[in-house]
């Protein structure tokens, strides 16, 4: 036994990057369940986590088919470097690990990534891969709600009290240096674009800014300075946080191998 063998084609990597982004963000957001600042947000965060989990499952199933691997094998038995989500998705809600967490960061990340998912799913409607296009269609509806919900909260908390404004600005500053990875083109992207599998991620940036900036302005938040991208989660090189997340996520399958659940 050891590392799971993946064919690692451009197509598979393109799919896994998106699948893992959804899976890991779902795992993070579900941490709020039972711990939210108001009961309605416990439910909303859990609801969005469920949507993301559903998206991840569909994509993992699709990505694993070529190698005869199912969603659980991919989620539970891959090693850390085989996860291809951008680092932004794996960051803990609070930098000091405290529970429940920093809700400002949750809102900011949900907003920034929901905008990104919206654009991505929209482009993927035209994928030459009809199954991917079908996943995109279902996911886009969900992502629209995520965007609306998180944008509302961005404005509410950004343009709330002086204290909440400071927290939101700090959360935005924390998230911003990780955004580069969401808009960096590479050979996987280029292949996807060439084959009409899906858009190059780099191509999403301008529209993303157009989507995000008015909301941040309404939230009275200042755009942080763009930073050069230092993160390589899409290439399997993660932050120190993913390993701890995976040791929890994968615990049962590893401790009870060969089980039927």
């Amino acid at each position: 036994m050891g590392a799971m063998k993946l064919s690692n084609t451009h197509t598979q990597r393109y799919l896994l990057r998106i699948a893992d982004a959804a899976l890991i963000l779902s795992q993070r957001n579900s941490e709020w369940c039972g711990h939210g600042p108001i009961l309605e947000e416990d439910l909303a965060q859990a609801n969005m986590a469920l949507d993301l989990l559903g998206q991840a499952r569909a994509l993992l199933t699709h990505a694993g088919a070529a190698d005869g691997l199912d969603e659980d094998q991919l989620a539970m038995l891959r090693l850390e470097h085989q996860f291809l989500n951008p680092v932004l998705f794996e960051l803990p809600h609070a930098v000091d690990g405290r529970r429940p967490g920093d809700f400002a960061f949750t809102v900011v990340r949900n907003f920034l990534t929901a905008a990104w998912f919206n654009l991505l799913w929209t482009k993927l409607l035209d994928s030459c891969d009809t199954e991917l296009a079908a996943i995109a269609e279902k996911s886009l509806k969900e992502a629209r709600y995520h965007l609306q919900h998180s944008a509302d909260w961005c404005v509410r908390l950004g343009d709330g009290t002086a204290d909440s404004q400071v927290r939101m600005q700090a959360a935005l500053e924390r998230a911003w240096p990780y955004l580069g990875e969401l808009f960096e083109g590479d050979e996987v992207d280029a292949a996807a674009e060439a084959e009409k599998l899906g858009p190059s991620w780099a191509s999403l940036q301008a529209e993303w800014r157009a989507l995000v900036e008015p909301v941040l302005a309404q939230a009275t938040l200042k755009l942080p300075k763009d930073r050069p991208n230092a993160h390589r989660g899409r290439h399997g090189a993660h932050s120190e946080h993913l390993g701890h997340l995976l040791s929890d996520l994968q615990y049962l399958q590893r401790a009870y191998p060969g089980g039927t659940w």
Partner: protein
Amino acid sequence: QAKEAAFQARIDAGDYIEPKDWMPSSYRKTLVRQISQHAHSEIVGMLPEGNWISRAPTLKRKAILLAKVQDEGGHGLYLYAAAETLGTSRDQMLDALHTGKAKYSSIFNYPTVTWADVGVIGWLVDGAAIMNQVPLCRCSYGPYARAMIRVCREESFHQRQGYESLLVMMQNGTEAQKAMVQDAVNRWWWPSLMMFGPPDSDSLHSEQSMRWGIKRNSNDELRQKFVDATVDQAKVLGISLPDPELKWNEERGHWDFGPINWDEFWRVVGGDGPCNRERLATRVRAWDEGEWVREAALAHARKQHTAKEAA
């Protein structure tokens, strides 16, 4: 007195009491206590199962569990709303929880130690809850009865899901999985029986509640009904229940069971269960850490309102 008699007559006739109807203040108080305690139980009950969301063994089980815990939050929401129709705000009720004045179901002061606990909570704890709650669907207070209809429907679904997950492990699982299920049943069986409350001989409030149509069966009646139903389910599972005195009593037409450790029950109710302090602290922490969020939302709503007025 005339009002009280008319009120009691309506109840006796099976009418629903609605928020705007006159009611005795002790009826109101009893209901607020009971409904809010029930709501608190849903909210605190999110914690033990929530502990396993991050570690569910498959993505399907994760989705089921996440949806279930979310449903519990939803039950909390309707129950708080039902209690609010009696004139107590959600914030007041939460304050009572956070300051230790209000109770929640003692069962949630036990920890979830393995994945099988999640299934066993569905099977036994939700099962016992349903036994307790089904009669409340005919409770005399309309909003509570209607909330309970919805709650019971969802709880039955959860109970079946929990049972099904145990069945899969017991029928197709490894030896380690089966042992995990048995261990969980051993830990949860007796606390589940305690969920029906103290024996009828020691039970407070019961008579008045019966008269008011808030309670329809005695604790011991419901407990027996639960035991009778569960023994058969345990057989199908292939699990043993941790009670050597459990045996069929032909004469009574019921299963006899061994003595319940009421010392433990009162100890846990009194605050010295394995998780009482942590559960309450966790809720208080979530509330306190969320204060800035609630304040900001309020401030923002005020700004919006002012802007609208000005326009």
